[in-house]
């Protein structure tokens, strides 16, 4: 069981309030991602749950029990750190065994779990090496192995993939998702990368300045962002925002339209502009369009075979049913 409930949890460092009172429930077995720009308090929130930071006020419940003042060692949570935080003086085997050694598990059981974790994480051949002799991806797997073997109530991941290169990151993302499917244990995952959030989460918690902007499934956040911040943060490339006359036509202070919801044509669209930079990904092409009279730049996603050159005039047609409307305070108008 791994249900975690935060009730009016608040955190200040000195006079600076980094997390205003906040409520959140994480259900047992859920994969929850905390996402937000750097400095939004997502890591602090995770560290509060872990017990590595003390809450200033409020209550943290783990499986209904008050864990607010329980030290991290006794909370039954496992954490994977951004820097992996492996013990450099111990072999991979000893690293993975460490939490079980602390829990005074008998040796046979320790070995059984180590073999099992090593097999699952492709580490069997590396058990006798030191962390310093491993690649980044292998180190990350050791850190995950160390977290798995103690069979925790929940896993906490603090930006675990940000030190890996792009290709490895995609691979590890899949591995962690598969791990979650297999173990069905609660996982809380912190990242600033909205792609990781979208691809892995059951539930995304979008944070800004310590405030929860929205909680929902990836598609909920994509389709019905509660405000302009969430609308701009979720989705890649970012949503285009248009203010002024064009927005007034839609009875809004601002309208938002995602790059993939604008159709392009050489002539005859609703809007027109000049092509600036074109980013060819092969499958898609992102056009950055200037001189539309709507916003400084509009980004448009077109199929990879659509050809426009720098300086060409391009016509744009937003899909009417995909236009998001926001009021003056940035909130969604439904």
């Amino acid at each position: 069981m791994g249900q975690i409930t935060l009730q009016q949890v608040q955190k200040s460092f000195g006079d600076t309030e980094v997390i205003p009172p906040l409520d959140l429930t994480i259900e047992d077995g859920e994969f929850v991602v905390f996402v937000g720009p750097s400095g939004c308090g997502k890591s602090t929130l995770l560290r509060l749950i872990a017990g590595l930071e003390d809450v200033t006020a409020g209550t943290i419940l783990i499986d209904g029990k008050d864990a607010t003042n329980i030290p991290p060692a006794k909370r039954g949570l496992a954490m994977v750190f951004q820097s992996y935080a492996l013990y450099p003086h111990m072999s991979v085997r000893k690293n993975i065994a460490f939490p079980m050694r602390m829990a005074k598990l008998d040796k046979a059981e320790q070995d059984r779990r180590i073999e099992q974790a090593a097999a699952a994480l492709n580490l069997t051949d590396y058990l006798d090496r030191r962390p310093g002799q491993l690649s980044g991806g292998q180190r990350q797997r050791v850190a995950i192995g160390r977290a798995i073997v103690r069979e925790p109530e929940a896993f906490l991941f603090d930006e675990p993939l940000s030190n890996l290169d792009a290709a490895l990151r995609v691979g590890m993302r899949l591995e962690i998702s598969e791990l979650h499917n297999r173990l069905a244990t609660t996982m809380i995952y912190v990242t600033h990368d909205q792609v990781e959030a979208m691809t892995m989460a059951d539930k995304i918690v979008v944070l800004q300045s310590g405030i929860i902007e929205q909680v929902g499934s990836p598609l909920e956040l994509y389709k019905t962002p509660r405000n302009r911040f969430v609308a701009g943060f979720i989705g890649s490339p970012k949503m285009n925002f248009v203010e002024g006359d064009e927005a007034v036509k839609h009875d809004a202070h601002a309208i938002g339209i995602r790059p993939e919801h604008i159709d392009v044509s050489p002539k005859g669209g609703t809007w027109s502009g000049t092509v600036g930079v074109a980013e060819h990904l092969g499958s898609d092409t992102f056009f950055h369009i200037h001189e539309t009279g709507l916003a400084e730049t509009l980004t448009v996603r077109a199929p990879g075979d659509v050809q426009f050159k720098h300086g060409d005039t391009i016509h744009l047609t937003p899909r009417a049913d995909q236009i998001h409307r926001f009021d003056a305070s940035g909130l969604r108008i439904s």
Partner: protein
Amino acid sequence: MARAVTTQRKTLNTVIAWGIGLLIFFPILWTILTSFKTEGQAIADPPLFLFFDWTLENYAVVQERSDYMRFLWNSVIIAGGSTLLGIIIAVPAAWSMAFVPSKRTKDILLWMLSTKMLPAVGVLYPIYLLFISLGLLDTRIGLTIVLMLINLPIIVWMLYTYFKEIPGEILEAARMDGASLKEEILYVLTPMAIPGIASTVLLNIILAWNEAFWTLNLTAANAAPLTAFIASYSSPEGLFFAKLSAASTMAIAPILILGWFSQKQLVRGLTFGAVK
């Protein structure tokens, strides 16, 4: 452009490095050579380098006149004892400063270091009086305590620097893995800090071994270490250069040997953190 290191340049660097090394070592070499000369040859003009009548006479005389082993033993106890005591006090201090710093941690560190700026002679009188009233004059325990206190700021600073290099996340990982504070210190921190602790111990033994001001002023016969042993051969008339050299060689030999065998550890320790 990458810096081209030519063979010629390498040779030049090697020659210069050896030159500087020999220059620094020369006084010690001269002392050792002199200890094998007769008193007459020791003050010969022009000085004799290698071609003289090698003799062990000085060593025999020195050993006959004073009990080398007693001084050596005092040195070992005072240097070793003050280092051990210092480490026991400094490890927890450095730990708390490195991992649970307060607003005043930096100030405390600087204040500790500032005590090293005070000329020792400035506190000789009060300490001398204290030693008299506490009955510590010419005792090993008194010297051990004084040398420990003198070197404590350096020990704390060195350990603090090493501990700062240990990433806090690793300690947090241990905490998450269910380790108690004791287990965290025993199984994670200490093994990681061993190179730092070892080089601190070595450096401190050398400092305490060579310390002359307090050892000369606070001892007479019972607790006198090797520094006092050397000093007893230095006379204003200066006619005992060879014997003084023999005494010096005997006094520095143990620490020279220790330094030689631990030089790798020392260099590693002193550059720890600078080279990653």
